[in-house]
């Protein structure tokens, strides 16, 4: 096929020679879904109660922005503040119960190969990027756009976007309240595994951000594996 040339300024994709480790499910079981999410792209899937979703950070330090919904009632969705309040902790790690806006468990982190994940920093987007970096980056694609595109496949829209979770992203809060996205704690092939506590619709944006270290300035693929645990 002839290579099509385009004048569209597309966001970064992973650099030639990047180390990639596709790994496999963190827990044994019958694989019911296995998807490779390209750099910059959205993904969604339903994880049935009891199934376990493994997210593989294939290239290392790739933020997987994530929202979750009760698959049977989308008004019930992931709530960062309820998750933090019940855990009484600002970070997501092994054992964290990811709660809904009604306080109910949506998913539980049952396996985890990095120190912690973020649920304070939210998602990048075209508009918020202008605040962070300047109006010259308005044309860049963002997670908010990925969420809107993927949400629309499920009848959801902008009213359904709330503070999200960021797998493999590192946002420390310092003693004086200073907080920000800093260098990640992950590496190629590192994984996190979450068990669905009800049937959960999961939306993921493989973050296309090129202006901060949330993707190590090199957006790489993610792998999503759902198993029925054996």
């Amino acid at each position, binding site marked *: 096929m002839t290579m099509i040339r385009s004048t569209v300024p597309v966001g970064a994709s992973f650099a030639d020679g990047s180390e990639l480790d596709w790994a496999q499910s963190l827990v044994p079981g019958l694989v019911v879904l296995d998807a490779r999410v390209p750099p910059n792209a959205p993904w969604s899937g339903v994880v049935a109660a009891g199934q376990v979703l493994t997210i593989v950070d294939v290239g290392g330090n790739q933020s997987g922005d994530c929202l979750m919904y009760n698959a049977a009632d*989308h*008004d*019930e*969705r992931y*709530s*960062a*503040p*309820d998750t*933090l*309040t*019940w855990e*009484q*902790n*600002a*970070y997501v790690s092994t054992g964290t119960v990811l709660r809904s*806006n*009604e*306080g*109910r468990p949506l998913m539980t982190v049952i396996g985890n190969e990095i120190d*912690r994940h973020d649920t*304070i*920093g*939210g*998602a990048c*987007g*075209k*508009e*918020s*990027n*202008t*605040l*962070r970096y*300047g*109006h010259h980056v308005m044309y860049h694609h963002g997670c*908010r756009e990925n969420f809107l595109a993927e949400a629309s496949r499920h009848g959801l*829209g*902008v*009213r*359904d*976007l*709330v*503070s*999200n979770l960021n797998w493999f992203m590192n*946002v420390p*809060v310092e*003693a*004086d*309240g*200073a*907080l*920000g*996205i800093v260098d990640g704690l992950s590496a190629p092939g590192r994984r996190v595994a979450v068990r669905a506590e009800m049937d959960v619709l999961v939306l993921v944006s493989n973050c296309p951000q090129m202006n901060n270290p949330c993707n190590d300035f090199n957006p790489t693929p993610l792998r999503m594996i759902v198993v029925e645990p054996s």
Partner: protein
Amino acid sequence: MALSVPRDQHTTDTVLNARSDARAQGGQSTEWMPHLPASSSPFAPAGIDPAALVWGEVVAPGGYTHKVVARGTRIRFDDPTGNACATLVVYNALEPVERLNVADTQKIPWQAYLGAGHPLLSGDGRVLASIVADTSGRHDAFCGTSTDMWNERKYGDSRSEGPTPSGRGLLVKAAAKHGLGRRDLPPSISFFQGVRVESDGKLGWQGSAGARTYVELVAELPLLVLVANVAHPLDPRTDYVVGPLHVHAWRGRPTGPADARFGTAPELERAYLNTIDYADARGL
């Protein structure tokens, strides 16, 4: 505080008598009520011309309120007892899909703790409201507010009509009065009851700075304001302790390039530029 009159003192056997009985109840006052016109508020902030007031209300402990205010309106929350907890959500009143985004409100200014100069950002790169004064310094943008499930576990009851209402239950009702549903309620913030992140990530209770503190906001767009005054979810007290919340608002002007706060940080300046750009295009 019950103002009710015993049954045997009501004569309500005919429509005319019932009307007289109802009308005889007017003109009373209670500790927590809206004051109309707002200029009649007995708690008008010092130095504010009462004639400029557009909102004067005392929100009951466990109560809620909501109002749409014009761009430029200055909104003041007072905690007279040290036990108020103003749980707040704000929306662009013209397009309520644009609403408080707590993540951007913490991330964009590189600061998790709210205080004077902090913008309340939407997810659309604009400032919905600016915090322009704060004598408390004890606020929280991590924990949201209580759910029914939380209060049932903590107090045994979460009903809005009961003694230990959940914040979410109240906000659902406030939102509904503007045609908004559960999906329209994003994470909220709380004024007057602080939480701090400890070195291991633990969310430590800080609580109140004491009686007689206040917070002032400027509405940078036409604003729908929802407020619930409920116990903070991490309040360690066994009892459900909340004090009254005073709310006043008066006419003012939005932040512009002439204001010192406009250019205090590059992120903030661009957020104001985006906000003014939107307002100009809409003819606000």
